């Protein structure tokens, strides 16, 4: 059961953390139509996270609930990719502040959605029937997220000189974080062995071709990969997740016996 729980938490935390990040745009988008579009993406992701946490809670039993898992675990217990917790701007220390940058948002959504479009499809065949059902539902959603982010990636890349430069900078900043996708964590390895999870490395060639085709259309240059491989999915995060969770969990933790 432990491999299943760890693996499901990885998928759930990915969805929640990115859903939380994307919701930051609600009320601040570049145009009203995009506020609405990005809120939809966020709602899909939070919906996925809830289903996965509910599944974990049912496996754990006792008085575990989706909200216990989302609100009462600490930073080191979160299993999301580091990519997803980063703020919507270029590289900065944890407590530094900057404006939201739409290019960063789009590039991240694109890189992650391209992976999840493949991963959810593969997970439809998971031996865990509940996970397979969640995968089928999430697949439809992520295909739309991929379409939305890819469309914008092309528009920004092949838009104005300014947008091209900005989105290339976002890509240069975020692309190295995708190395984490392909480095198995022990939890992933155990889940693959148990037939619950999918070996992501088998998806890499397809991911590469989705990414390369989009980058070419967007006239963007694929950054070379090297250097530090992040380990968020093993609980070793950037400085940013602590702030994200401190904010997200503050109210629930201030009223541990509260009912909402």
């Amino acid at each position, binding site marked *: 059961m432990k491999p299943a729980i760890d693996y499901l938490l990885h998928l759930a935390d990915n969805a*929640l953390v990115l859903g*939380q990040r994307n*919701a*930051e745009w*609600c*009320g*601040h*988008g*570049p*145009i*009203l*139509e*995009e*506020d*609405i579009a990005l*809120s*939809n993406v*966020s*709602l899909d992701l*939070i*919906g996925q*996270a*809830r289903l996965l*946490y509910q599944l974990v809670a049912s496996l754990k039993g006792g008085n575990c609930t*989706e*909200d216990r898992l*989302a*609100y009462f675990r600490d930073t080191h217990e979160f299993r999301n990719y580091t990519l997803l917790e980063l703020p919507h701007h270029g590289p900065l220390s944890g407590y530094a502040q900057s*404006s*939201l940058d*739409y*290019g960063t948002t789009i590039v991240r959504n694109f890189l992650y959605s391209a992976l999840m479009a493949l991963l959810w499809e593969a997970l439809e065949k998971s031996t865990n029937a509940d996970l397979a059902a969640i995968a089928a539902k999430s697949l439809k959603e992520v295909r739309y997220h991929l379409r939305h982010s890819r469309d*914008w990636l*092309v*528009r*920004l890349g*092949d*838009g*104005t000189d*300014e*947008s091209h430069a*900005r989105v290339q900078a976002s890509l240069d900043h975020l692309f190295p974080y995708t190395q984490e996708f392909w480095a198995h964590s022990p939890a992933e390895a155990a889940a693959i062995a148990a037939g619950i999870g999918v070996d992501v490395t088998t998806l890499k060639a397809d991911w590469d071709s989705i990414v390369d085709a989009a980058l070419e259309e967007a006239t963007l240059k694929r950054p070379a990969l090297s250097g530090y491989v992040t380990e968020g999915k093993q609980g070793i995060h950037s400085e940013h997740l602590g702030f994200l969770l401190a*904010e*997200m969990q*503050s*109210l*629930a933790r201030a*009223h541990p*016996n*509260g*009912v*909402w």
Partner: protein
Amino acid sequence: MYTQSFNVPDSPGAKTVALAPSTEDPALQAAFDARIDADGRIEPQDWMPEAYRKTLVRQISQHAHSEIVGMLPEGNWISRAPSLKRKAILIAKVQDEGGHGLYLYSAAETLGTSRDQMLDGLHSGRAKYSSIFNYPTLTWADVGVIGWLVDGAAIMNQVPLCRCSYGPYARAMVRVCKEESFHQRQGYEALLVMMTGTAEQKAMVQDAVNRWWWKCLAMFGPPDADSPNSAQGMRWGIKRVSNDELRQKFVDATVPQAKVLGVTLPDPDLKWNEERQHYDYGQIDWNEFWETVNGNGPCNKERLATRVKAHNEGQWVRDAALAHAAKKQAMKEAA
């Protein structure tokens, strides 16, 4: 979500709209009046008096601005929503407000004013929006109270607008009202649940009600006696029920809801009047209302600056999309 019946003139230069019939073609004017009197609808290409057009643009755009500025006070709690269910509900709700703003801008655009022009009015501080959004949301209970009271007040105002004489506005309002019905219920239900919780939670709800109650009463706009534009609005069928009538309706509907919820409304003068068959209520602080309308409320500057920032920082994104579309078009034409 929306709000006070907008008789509030936009600032600089926007003098009170001329009430007297204009010097326009009397035959057209007569046909227009006849249609209004017969409770008919006016569509974008129909002839209409300039004052009617201007009033509508002002009212609809103020309504649209209210929706998008109104995203901010509630959006303030999205990141901290205390459960995933409430987080999803709140995102969906704030998103709806954005959608309502969009429907309304579209309705106003049929009158020949572009969204950019309207946004320029908002960003430069000329155009007004509902004063209620210039108050801060200090606790999570504010989110529930806004749903229950602010959206409740808004619905009172909006339902009659579904029968407004201007077709596109009426149709937008039908769509808005359909979506809005979930807003008030989710707010009230969130409060009901909190009232079954801890003592701190109950206190949080009561505190939020205390802070928002009077502001909600003011949302319906100045008393009828002080609303010179109301009569013209009624005549034109773009306002169907007077400010005071709506306010009374709201008070009468809310008092029993407060009882069920288990909170008190902060008005010692609030009591049932057997003779009138309505609740009497105390004196609204109109000074505070006008101070806030005129830019001096607790959050006016923050709200406006936030809208301006989002718009300015989104310029490169909007430009890129347009530049890309132009490139694509050029390629298509060359092929």
